[in-house]
């Protein structure tokens, strides 16, 4: 049992009402992996004799990197035989607080615990996201992961797992260390140790806040209008064409490319590498095409431009730091 938690947040309940967790993240932030690690943890506990069962189920749209995704965990002392998406959630993990607000409070009840990846204080973020009077745990997982893992893109998943020990007291640092080792073994010793360090820091630096007695506002989520079969056009066709630009894929971005025009040599390599045609160019008076900026409405933040730039004129900045 860890010493840090003031009170144990959650005990695993019986099979009829399994403990449910949702991870709100964007593609490629490692939420699916973290959720699977959680399931491996339960498997480890099950091996020790105490019978536990767990599931980890991701839900994706059509796109991958950057698109908001959800991953659902169920944990129970009895065998889990259901596969539907849980409607009541005990823990809501927000890996990326830039995801549309409405969905984040979906399924929350009065004892729901939020675990949020942010560098703000728990109360600050709870008020900003209108999470209501609930318990909130925050950890600056993006910042910690960036420092510890030394990777180009941020992978906050293992850091958040560390903070999760606070919520589930039956997870221990020792157990978490072991699972991270077995999960990342193939990627080498360095990956294992850096992820373990990130996880420990996540546990140590997590901040708790009990907001149940406060007046933090609650944003009611209005469910979208349900379509009847006759509302859908024949063959599910769309009564407009050539409107792909209306799909603002810029909201999927976790990191933003910043262009330094003083360094830019206008080689247009970035323009060719861009998957979303988001490098804005214009023909100058000399008849040559010049880079003038980046279309943030459609840039998904894939950093392909950063990779190809021969003069290091573009660098990525986390989206949370640009506001």
């Amino acid at each position: 049992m860890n010493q840090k938690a003031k009170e144990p947040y959650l005990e695993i309940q019986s099979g009829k009402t399994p403990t449910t967790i949702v991870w709100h993240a964007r593609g490629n932030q490692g939420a699916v992996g973290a959720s699977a690690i959680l399931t491996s943890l339960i498997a480890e506990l099950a091996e020790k004799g105490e019978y536990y069962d767990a599931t980890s189920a991701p839900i994706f749209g059509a796109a991958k990197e950057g698109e908001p995704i959800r991953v659902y965990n169920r944990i129970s002392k009895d065998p889990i035989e259901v596969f539907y998406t849980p409607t009541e959630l005990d823990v809501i993990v927000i890996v990326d607080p830039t995801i549309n607000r409405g969905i984040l409070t979906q399924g929350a009840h009065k004892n729901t615990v939020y675990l949020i990846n942010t560098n703000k204080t728990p109360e600050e973020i709870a008020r900003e996201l209108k999470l209501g009077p609930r318990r909130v745990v925050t950890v600056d997982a993006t910042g910690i992961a960036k420092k510890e893992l030394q990777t180009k893109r941020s992978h906050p998943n293992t850091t958040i797992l560390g903070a999760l020990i606070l919520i589930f007291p039956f997870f221990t640092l020792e157990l978490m260390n072991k699972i991270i080792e077995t999960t990342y073994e193939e990627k080498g010793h360095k990956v294992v140790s850096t992820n373990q360090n990130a996880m420990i820091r996540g546990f140590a630096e997590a901040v708790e806040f009990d907001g149940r007695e406060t007046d933090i506002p609650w944003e009611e989520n209005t469910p979208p209008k349900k379509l009847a079969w006759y509302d859908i056009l024949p063959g599910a066709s769309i009564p407009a064409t050539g409107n792909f630009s209306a799909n603002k894929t810029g909201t999927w971005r976790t990191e933003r490319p910043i262009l330094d025009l003083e360094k830019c040599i206008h080689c247009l390599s970035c323009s060719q590498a861009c998957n979303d045609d988001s490098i804005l160019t214009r023909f100058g008076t000399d008849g040559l095409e010049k880079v003038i900026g980046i279309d943030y409405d459609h840039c998904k933040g894939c950093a392909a431009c950063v990779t190809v730039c021969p003069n290091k004129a573009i660098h990525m900045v986390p989206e949370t730091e640009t506001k």
Partner: protein
Amino acid sequence: MNDKKYVILPGDGNLMAATAIVHADTDVVAVYQITPSTQVSEHIAEKKRTGEFAGEVRVLHGEIEAYTACYTASQCGARVAGPSCSQGLLYASELLHAMPGARCPIVILAANREVSAPINIHAGHSDVMPFRDSGAVMFFAKNAQEVYDFTLLAFKIGEDKRVQLPVWVNYDGFEISHTTVINKILNEQGVKELREYLGTYERPCSMLNMEHPHATGGLVLPNAFMEAKYALVQAMQNVPKVMEEVSDFYSKNFWPVHSFVEEYELQDAEYAIITMGSRFGTVKEAVKRARANGEKVGALRIVSFRPFPVAKVRDLLDGKKAVAVLDRSGVYGSPMSPLCENVAGSLINMPFGSPFVRGFVDSLGGRVLTVEQVLEIIQSLKHHERWNDDVRSTWVGVEKGDTI
């Protein structure tokens, strides 16, 4: 009608299919030739050369390409026909399932042939059965005349705003596709009247409607997928009414046509034999001989397999002691073949008890079903009490196989 609207044309199923495609003023025919439906495209190409056919004929590099062309042309608002069969249908199966969902009223002419392996070019319904639940309307013709009739009906039924679904005209390979019989086709006056009735195809959500263009092929996620597919259920429910209207017009103005079921000596029968396609003649012959010996037996042919004429089958078979279903599609590890499943499914929960149902698999790969074999099946119907503990389909005429 007094004035004659037809001429006599001796021809096989493929010629009749091609003639119907031309008479219906089809815009696009896209094919990759495959035995036994090759001659459809050959006849159309010939009619294109002589100027009789005004539409486009495209021979592409494979069935998946041919049906993609059909699919796209239909989405642009063209009247489309696509002849193929067997391996060709399987190769293009992705498109054949997409057509109903995208609401493309393409007429698919399938000269039914068995599927590999072992490879076989002769008749059998195993090629069309994988598509029975794709959401398309399906006719099974009994002769070349019906291939012509159903192809003309198919365009009108499929393109009706209440339906908007592809229509399959299935005809047995070689037995219908290559057997020349004497047929009636519409003469100049008849074709003129028919084309007036068919009109031009007006697609509700066309890609090429310049004032209101539509995009197609969008993604539908769990929140609306069932609703999008439920539209097909609704469209399928409208088919019988439309089918009745269209066949009424055809019967009144040209000549009679069976569009749901065809019955033979069924009224006072105690036993019934049910089948589809070209073998109905054999069954009728056997029933005729059995009747001469005082047997109370009748025959029923399912004409529109999709939508399955449930109400008609229930009505016609109510009170029968036992029915035998002769299906030209093999099943392995399943209690019943596709046709038998549908007949048995139509007969469940009847207020005064359902007839006994027994499935038979016959005539696969062009094997001949003899009148004697059908007579034997009729005899076996009398011992239906013994079927209690066995619902397997019996394979007819298999050397040293099960006995009836």
